[in-house]
């Protein structure tokens, strides 16, 4: 497969988007009885060398990032960038409007000074940080993504209620239908189903 496509595939996988070239086999979805079992199953799958897999739970499970072998989230850097941009914008706005474009002498106060500019600078810093945090979170998550082959599983609807799932995507280099299924069984899965994707996929190899 061509390396650019492979890179794109891995980046998408980091967002939880797995696009299998085979519509008949998107991946395997295994259910686990509780957060603890899911946690240990994720560790097991990680130790077996899988990369394209994800745990689905109705609430975030503490420590799951390590169990899945994921690093720290990058959202913070995006927030930081947004904050710097907001501060710069606020400073520029105060200086440009007050001292350059429309200087007004108000009680002999300086046209531009930091003190009266702080509220606007502060608020714009917060505003842009917050908006970039949310935009960055959506971007890193690959959301909005209304279409997801996992929704074909009627069982999966309970992932937002009280069920705990582990999904191993067929795009994983180690994925092997029978072997992967055996691994999931060994890890204590209560049910395992094959997820099919009869829609389109932009991968071909």
């Amino acid at each position, binding site marked *: 497969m061509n390396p650019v496509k492979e890179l794109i595939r891995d980046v998408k996988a980091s967002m*939880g988007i797995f696009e299998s070239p085979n519509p008949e086999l998107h991946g395997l979805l295994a259910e686990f*009885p*509780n*957060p*603890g*079992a*899911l946690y*240990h199953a*994720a560790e*097991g799958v990680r130790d077996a060398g899988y990369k394209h897999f*994800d*745990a*689905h*739970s*109705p*609430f*975030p*499970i*503490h*420590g799951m*990032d390590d*169990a*899945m072998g*994921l690093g720290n*989230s990058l*959202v*913070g850097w995006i*927030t930081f960038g947004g904050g710097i941009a907001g501060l710069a914008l606020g400073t520029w706005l*105060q200086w440009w*409007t*007050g001292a350059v*474009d*429309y200087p*007004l002498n*108000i009680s002999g106060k300086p046209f531009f000074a930091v003190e*009266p500019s702080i*509220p*606007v600078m502060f*608020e*714009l810093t*917060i*505003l842009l*940080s*917050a*908006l970039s945090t*949310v935009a960055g*979170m959506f971007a890193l*998550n690959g959301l909005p*993504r*209304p*279409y997801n082959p996992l*929704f074909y599983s009627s069982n*999966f*609807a309970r*992932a*937002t*209620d*009280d069920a705990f799932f582990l999904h191993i995507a067929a795009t994983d280099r180690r994925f092997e239908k029978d072997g992967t299924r055996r691994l999931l069984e060994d*890890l*204590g899965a209560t049910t395992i189903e094959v997820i099919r994707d009869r829609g389109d996929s932009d991968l071909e190899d």
Partner: protein
Amino acid sequence: MSTEHQANSAGHVMDDSPLFGADLSFHDITEMVASHTEKKTPIAWFAAFSLANIGLMILLVMIAYLFWNGVGVWGLNNPVGWGYAIVNFVFWVGIGHAGTLISAILFLFRQQWRTAINRSAEAMTIFAVICALIFPGIHVGRVWAAYWMLPIPNQMEMWPQFKSPLLWDVFAVSTYFTVSLVFWYVGLIPDLATLRDRATNKIRQRVLGVLSMGWTGANRHWRNYEKAYLLLAALATPLVLSVHSVVSFDFAVSIVPGWHTTIFPPYFVAGAIFSGFAMVVTLLVIARKIYNLEDIITIGHLEKMNIIILLTGTMVGFAYITEFFIAWYSGVQYEQYAFLNRAFGPYAWAYWIMMSCNLFFPQFFWFKKLRTSIPFMFVVSIFVNVGMWFERFVITVTSLHRDYLPSSWDYYSPTAVDVLTFVGSFGLFFTLFLLFLRFVPMVAIAEVKAVKPEADPHYYDGHGDGHAGHELPTAAPGPPATA
């Protein structure tokens, strides 16, 4: 019970009171909260909604009347150029603060009890800020020029006057509104996905499908989501403190006696949290009863809010007394007069309503019996809201109505339009809040589940989860994940 204790102490909860009134499974929580948005609309809701809508209509008619006639329909007079509009604005902004305090500051402090109340408190914040934004919007004489407050490049080559606290307000309150809305929506996404997955009809499924953005509860998503939530909380914390500080600058930056005090920013923030928590108590005491959520929003939760009311009420009362002391200590006769006039002048009635509602009544919450009594806390929360409205009234009107020149002294009284506009703003608030109760899960489902001891993966270690091969050495339970 012992495991619950363990997990709670690991989560740094300072007290032993349970987070839930009963033993609820994850599914029970989903069912309890989500089913209210799914069943047929109750008649009582329509009744309440109609009443709120009448209020909203009153507001709209009063605004139309104001626009047609100008601000002369209000009771403003020469020394008092600023009356109900600013009082209501500060009142409503203040109400909003409890929501952000619960969602952001208590989150940073790992207060797990916040999860039961944060969704409704945040909704309250957003609706209160909407009500607040109306008043500065309509009080400018030429309403059609209200957009001049925003720095929009225009053909007149004018910019707003950024050295005015009123303009800082525009930035502070609009940022506050935007960030609160975004924070609330981000918190809603997992719950909207829950509703989507439970939806039985196509339209509901589609609408919720769009709103929940394809959320699947994937851990790759939770990872970024939790980081974003933490960062938003960290950003909202200084924001909420700044907003009411900036609002207090509207007064404090001037040189009017009674306004020009450095205590204003912290005192306004404490007052805002005070009134906001009172409003949360008022609303939740009713909502938890109607929606049968007593096991999720327990007496323990209400008690903790009452303790915050007691704390902030005492802080506010301390500020009132400090103001008096500083007025005397400053030796400025205008300052001294302003405060004596507040307590013993023509507006003494308003001053003593404020003092008794804000300083006196919350003191009953020192008694556990009283702060855990539903009827009692309901009454006190109403008193606090009344008192906090009067606080803003006292600050605004008593300082203005007697300025430096006795020849310009006058007594301010509102007209019917003033009063009805204020009443109407409650109509708007309750209209929005009722829509929220009807269509949105009023408790953060995912967050409530996450504070259950069963949500911690290590809860199951040693309970035998069926596979010995992959067990790590049992670690001490870490703090349960928070959403």
